[in-house]
């Protein structure tokens, strides 16, 4: 509660001083356990601000809404550490100018919410390095462990079952801050690389390509997972790929706003034990 009150004041100050034109935060949702994104432009709107442990959504995707940052004015945004990593990637991929972003950082343990020190992306580089070295989640998710123990056939069956439910609503894509393409590859129909139909084959293709496009870019904010209306554990694939690029290329997505995209760069001594 104290954090929330402090931040309400901060938001009001930021708006009053004109240092930001808008702050993106959270407000109460349609049920007590729900939170909605909130776009604060006035002091009154700031009073609606809520900040607690149920504020899970990574809001950074809203920053790349067309036209929002084109006037070069600054925008404030409430971000968890993963969200800060997201905007670092967006900056590294030239989707936003990091100078325009005022970060109102927070994190939570259990029900406690605490603010994060700093306002600019650079202020958090120490924190992010720490997270890279010491991942918060020390124990692997049991389901992920279960999948990794399966043989290929069992894994295929597992995902076939999961993907068979997919309805191709693309909530995963739309919820992901990294999916900012003007035209998604599934919407490119000449040729149609990914079958648009939501039969299991088409769903398989879509989910594999989505995961590939997020490899080295996913910060595991969980937006896709929470958005999925048919409850596919999408986070697991992305988590697996994050481990792959970390182990393989020491790449921790979103460590800095100038980080080179892992799949647009290479090292001459990259591992190649799998190549015949």
């Amino acid at each position, binding site marked *: 509660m104290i954090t929330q009150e402090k931040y309400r004041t901060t938001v009001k100050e930021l708006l009053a001083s004109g240092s930001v034109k808008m702050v993106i935060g959270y407000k109460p949702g349609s049920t007590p356990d729900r939170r909605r994104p909130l776009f604060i432009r006035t002091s009154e709107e700031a009073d609606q601000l809520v900040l607690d442990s149920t504020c899970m959504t990574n809001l950074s995707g809203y920053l790349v809404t067309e036209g929002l940052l084109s006037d070069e004015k600054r925008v404030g945004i409430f971000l968890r550490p993963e969200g800060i990593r997201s905007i670092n990637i967006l900056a590294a*991929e030239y*989707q936003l100018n990091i100078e325009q972003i005022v970060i109102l950082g927070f994190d939570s343990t259990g029900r406690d919410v605490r603010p994060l020190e700093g306002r600019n992306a650079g202020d958090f580089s120490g924190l992010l390095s720490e997270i890279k070295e010491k991942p918060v989640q020390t124990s692997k998710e049991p389901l992920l462990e279960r999948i990794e123990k399966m043989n290929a056939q069992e894994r295929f069956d597992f995902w076939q079952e999961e993907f068979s439910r997919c309805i191709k609503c693309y909530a995963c894509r739309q919820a992901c801050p990294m999916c900012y*393409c*003007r035209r998604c*590859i599934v919407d490119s129909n000449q040729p149609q690389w990914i079958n648009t139909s939501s039969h299991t084959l088409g769903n398989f293709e879509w989910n594999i390509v989505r995961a590939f*496009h997020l490899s080295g870019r996913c910060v595991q904010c969980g937006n896709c997972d929470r958005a999925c209306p048919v409850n596919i554990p999408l986070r697991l694939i992305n988590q697996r790929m994050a481990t792959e690029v970390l182990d393989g290329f020491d790449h921790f997505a979103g460590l800095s706003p100038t980080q080179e995209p892992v*799949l647009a*760069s290479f090292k001459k001594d990259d591992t190649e034990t799998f190549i015949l």
Partner: protein
Amino acid sequence: MAKIGVFICHCGENIAAKVDCTKLAAALGEHPGVAVSVEYKYFCSDPGQESVKKAIRDNNLSGIVIAACSPRMHEATFRKACAEAGLNPYLCEIANIREQCSWVHTDGDMATAKAMDIVRSMVEKVKRNNKLQSIEVPVTRRALVIGGGIAGLQAALDIANAGQEVVLVEREPSLGGHMAQLSETFPTLDCSQCIMTPRMVETAQHPKIRLLTYAEVESVDGYIGNFKVKIRMKSRYVDMNTCTGCGDCMTKCPAKKISSEFDCGLGKRTAIYTPFAQSVPNIPVIDKASCIYFKNGKCKMCQKSCQLNSINFEMQDEFIDLEIGAIVVATGFQVQNTAVYGEYGYGKFPDVITGLQFERLASASGPTAGKILRPSDGKEPENVVFIQCAGSRDPSKGVRYCSKICCMYTAKHAMLYAHKVHGGKTHIFYMDIRAAGKGYDEFTRRAIEEDEASYVRGRVSKVWQENGKLMVRGVDTLLGKPVTVAADMVVLATAMVSQPNAKEFAKTIGIAYDEYGFYNEAHLKLRPVESSTAGVFLAGACQSPKDIPDSVAQASASASKVLALFSKEKLEREPVIAVNNEATCAGCWGCVLACPYNAIEKKDIRDRSGRLIKQVAYVNPGLCQGCGTCVTFCRSNSLDLAGFTEKQIFAEVMGL
């Protein structure tokens, strides 16, 4: 609606013996969009090509597939035929049913089935081919020749004499290369330096040649006609503009016991030195590693002796950026380190020497002033054993290939020895005598018949020292008996191998090399002087072991290729380049980072009032080489590669 012509070539029996071409033609005739499907014995023949052209005209074909040999063989042939028949040449695809089908499979039915898939897939591709126009790029008419040995000199002089600019880069302080080290040359026995040094002088004085010695190529960017080359001028510590080459500094230099590279360790040099007396330019360099001043901070004898104040210990490496249209690589070879043959005792017994060392002994300008004297005691050897193939044709310890020149120079050595040491005896252990070449076999016969060289066919198993003699044990395979020869000197005909940094250097220039580090020609028979990279040509022993006539011939051939390139103001290039869909590009610039050629730029998209709407990627068609790395990176599928478009490849797979 597509109207595709399918032309199935029998290639005599090469294809038809395994693939049922009649069945293939009939099946393709039923393929959607195929208007003509015919077979013929040799489509690459004149009547064959005429029939293709006629079919294109008669049926107003929208594309053709030639099912024949590899596109690497005849793609150009049939594209030309298309153009002659009024069809855009890029509407032609080759289905490779020879190298990758009929020649490699034993079962006829399986081969026919595979051929059918291959041709169908290409039909599907060609349906989606676009009419492409070749790209014109300007040509910078300035050649870079890398290496100042005989091949480099020849290429530089040929190009310069035709009126084009040349930059010649040599990493040593002087021109000359290996040829300058030789005594006399086979098969005429004319003095190597006598024919070499005038060329060196001519090169240095040529108004069209810019000579950069003691210099190395640092990086090469760009592409044919438009290379950007950075040269590192290594610091000589001697001002080239003021030094007159009087040699006072060398006389005064107290560090005199340095093993001379030029004399293959048989002679000594000073720390400030020119490699040899006739060096071009005749301007010394300071060998920093051996210089007393650089080691101890005291001495400067050279500086004190120099009346022109040309010595500058503060000199730094300098970089020169050049715009270059074509490159001739003439980086030469090195002699294999014969220490790998412990049994021959090289390095252990001072009188076991390499062929190149023998050249220095025999050379009038060498450390013994042309007298054949043993390195150990300076005595004239009475009995010399030559061991051929000391490294060549030996997959176990040496190299698998034949170094090509050793038979000839060993015969020459035997003759030179016979001429210089009357009554001396020579034994030559050999595997075969390979003396193909104008006057070559006559030359070796002369060595045997006139100069009494004793050839023993067999290999040497061991050399050891006994009572001041080198005992050479071998086997005479013609007699089937072991032989032991007591010798005063043993000369090893060592293998010619690639330069120690040949592979790294190839990567710097971007050319391909073989397993030995010799540079690959674009085609062994038909494009022997072109490298795998357009605009880069090969000359001399950097491509494979060669003697002087061959090196000179190849150098002149490279020069003529360069001149042919320079004969045009603009160059036509394959239009296989990436293009970007600006409407869908998200401007993430991953492609900019991924492009190996820095060919992708950021382009501003503005509205009518000039307001910036967004930035998108723009592919510079002059720089793009068409690898497609950016296309694969592009998540939104905005980039595509002409000639290998997403649509084409999709159709190819879907047509299988």
